[in-house]
């Protein structure tokens, strides 16, 4: 299911004018504060009626100003997680969670509420009202409310911003599951590179109401000229297969014949995954390294060197596992004599591949 969005809208601050088609999966909207992300999401939700445009999920048209079509928000079967919560203050947490379920059509595929409640860790809050919740608790209830509405389209506007890392790590897999198993299209706003890397099928980078760059996550993330969330987000996405789980708590992945080790992940052996290798975390060497604590060494050839701003450069290295990006200083480029075609080794720490960067099943992005 693909999401296509075309919008034109004049706001006091900026002129929104954008057009993108996102394939099935998670489309991440990326961009600086005030660049128009929430406005786009609101237009898709039908809370804002743009001057001109069209939004459709496959051939299910949500609105189309040319053809005068307009589906009111309540007919769009949304699960909208708002940037500011918007819980119903007069209902308990339980009633808030159930709200969407009251209106879902009978035949709708239903989430299991207990499972969602457990994942969000809000079981002990069910009888409270929103005024008695902490900021993060509110946000979690809001996530639950949207997920339990049996949505056909999920809109998530910085859903995890208020949460601690541990809680994020518990919730992210859920979005992955929605993306992969239930295949609900998800439009997801975030500033977090880790979330982008993990969830995004495609990324739309916005700048002042326009699309700056748009494409599969792996491409956009690998492009230092976009770096919508700052250089730290640059990284490569590799397709891998789970090869083995070792006793010492490591899992072994296989990618094009090469082996990668990382802390134990829960996926089954044989499962296909994708994994993000932040350019930041890769060290290059012109000799086979020895005696290093880093367990992952991929040999390959320099494909290209792109100088970024400042003293850094992004070196792409063609390895059997795929293209790996490394962010190094220009001084190192010179010292190691790196240039396109030169063989080299990419060294990746085992623990740099924390489970956070392991995505779900692989899709053609």
């Amino acid at each position, binding site marked *: 299911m693909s999401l296509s969005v075309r919008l034109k809208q004049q706001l006091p601050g900026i002129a929104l004018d954008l057009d993108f088609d996102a394939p099935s999966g998670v489309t991440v909207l990326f961009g600086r504060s005030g660049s128009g992300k929430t406005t786009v999401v609101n237009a898709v939700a039908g*809370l804002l009626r743009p001057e001109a445009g069209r939004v459709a999920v496959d051939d299910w048209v949500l609105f189309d100003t040319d053809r005068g079509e307009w589906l009111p*928000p309540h007919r769009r079967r949304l699960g909208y997680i*708002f940037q500011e919560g918007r819980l*119903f203050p*007069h209902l308990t947490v339980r009633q808030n969670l159930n*709200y969407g379920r009251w*209106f879902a059509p009978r035949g709708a595929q239903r989430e299991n509420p207990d499972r969602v409640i457990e994942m969000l860790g809000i079981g002990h809050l069910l009888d409270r*009202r929103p*005024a008695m919740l902490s900021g993060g608790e509110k946000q979690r209830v809001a996530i639950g409310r949207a997920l339990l509405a049996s949505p056909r389209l999920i809109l998530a506007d910085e859903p995890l911003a208020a949460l601690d890392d541990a809680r994020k790590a518990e919730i992210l897999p859920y979005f992955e599951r929605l993306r992969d198993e239930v295949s609900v299209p998800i439009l997801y706003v975030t500033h977090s590179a880790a979330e982008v890397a993990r969830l995004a099928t495609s990324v739309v980078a916005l700048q002042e109401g326009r699309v700056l760059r748009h494409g599969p996550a792996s491409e956009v993330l690998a492009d230092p000229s976009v770096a919508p969330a700052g250089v730290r987000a640059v990284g490569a996405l590799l397709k891998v297969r789970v090869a083995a789980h070792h006793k010492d708590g490591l899992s072994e992945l296989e990618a094009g014949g090469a082996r990668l080790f990382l802390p134990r992940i829960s996926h089954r052996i044989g499962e296909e995954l994708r994994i993000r290798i932040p350019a930041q975390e890769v060290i290059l060497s012109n000799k086979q390294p020895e005696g290093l604590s880093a367990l992952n060494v991929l040999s390959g050839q320099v494909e290209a060197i792109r100088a970024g701003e400042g003293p850094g450069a992004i070196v792409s290295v063609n390895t059997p596992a795929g293209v790996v990006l490394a962010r190094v200083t220009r001084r190192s480029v010179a010292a190691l004599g790196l240039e396109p075609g030169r063989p080299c080794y990419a060294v990746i720490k085992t623990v740099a591949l924390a489970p956070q960067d392991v995505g779900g099943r692989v899709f053609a992005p």
Partner: protein
Amino acid sequence: MEALRLSLRVSFWATLVTLPFGIFVAYALARWRFPGRQVLNGLVHLPLILPPVVTGYLLLLTFGLQGPLGKPLAGLGIVFAFRWTGAALAAGIMAFPLMVRAIRLSIEAVDPKLEQAGATLGASRLMVFATVTLPMIFPGVIAGAILAFAKAMGEFGATITFVSNIPGQTQTLPSAVYAFLQVPGGEAAATRLVIISIIIAMGALLLSEYVGRRVAERVAGS
């Protein structure tokens, strides 16, 4: 006391029956923009501005047995003239502006963003109203109803002009008070009636405050 029972019945029904209209009109005035909105707004306030006698007279002209509305309604078996229903109609109309204003203020205080949230979760406009707006304006509805009830308990001018004062049918407490006040030496009896009506109205007031606060607390937490 017959007048008391009647007054309670009249006020109760006047409040109850006008409440849905009051909520509807308040919602329309607060949230919709339509031509004639200001006319409706003015019309609603009319009974407040007009001397009650005039309102009563207008009611008599419209809903009287020969009136343009009274006649067809009488054909349907709905008679207002000289019935307690007429007293309720008069009380309801007199109380209407108070009710609408209170409810409208509450509606305007509800954040449309919550209503939007309801819509994204699949609730139609009507359901959003029933599940989000209405519960949230509950204190305003209570306030509106209590104002209306109190006003209805005290209404006299329009009632007596419209449906006269027929013991057992339309002789409400205020009419009785008025009658006592007209004759020398009636003060004691009038005072008694006034005290009764104060007690009743205060009771209703306290009850409404209590209910309103309970609801507000439930929402605000703590």
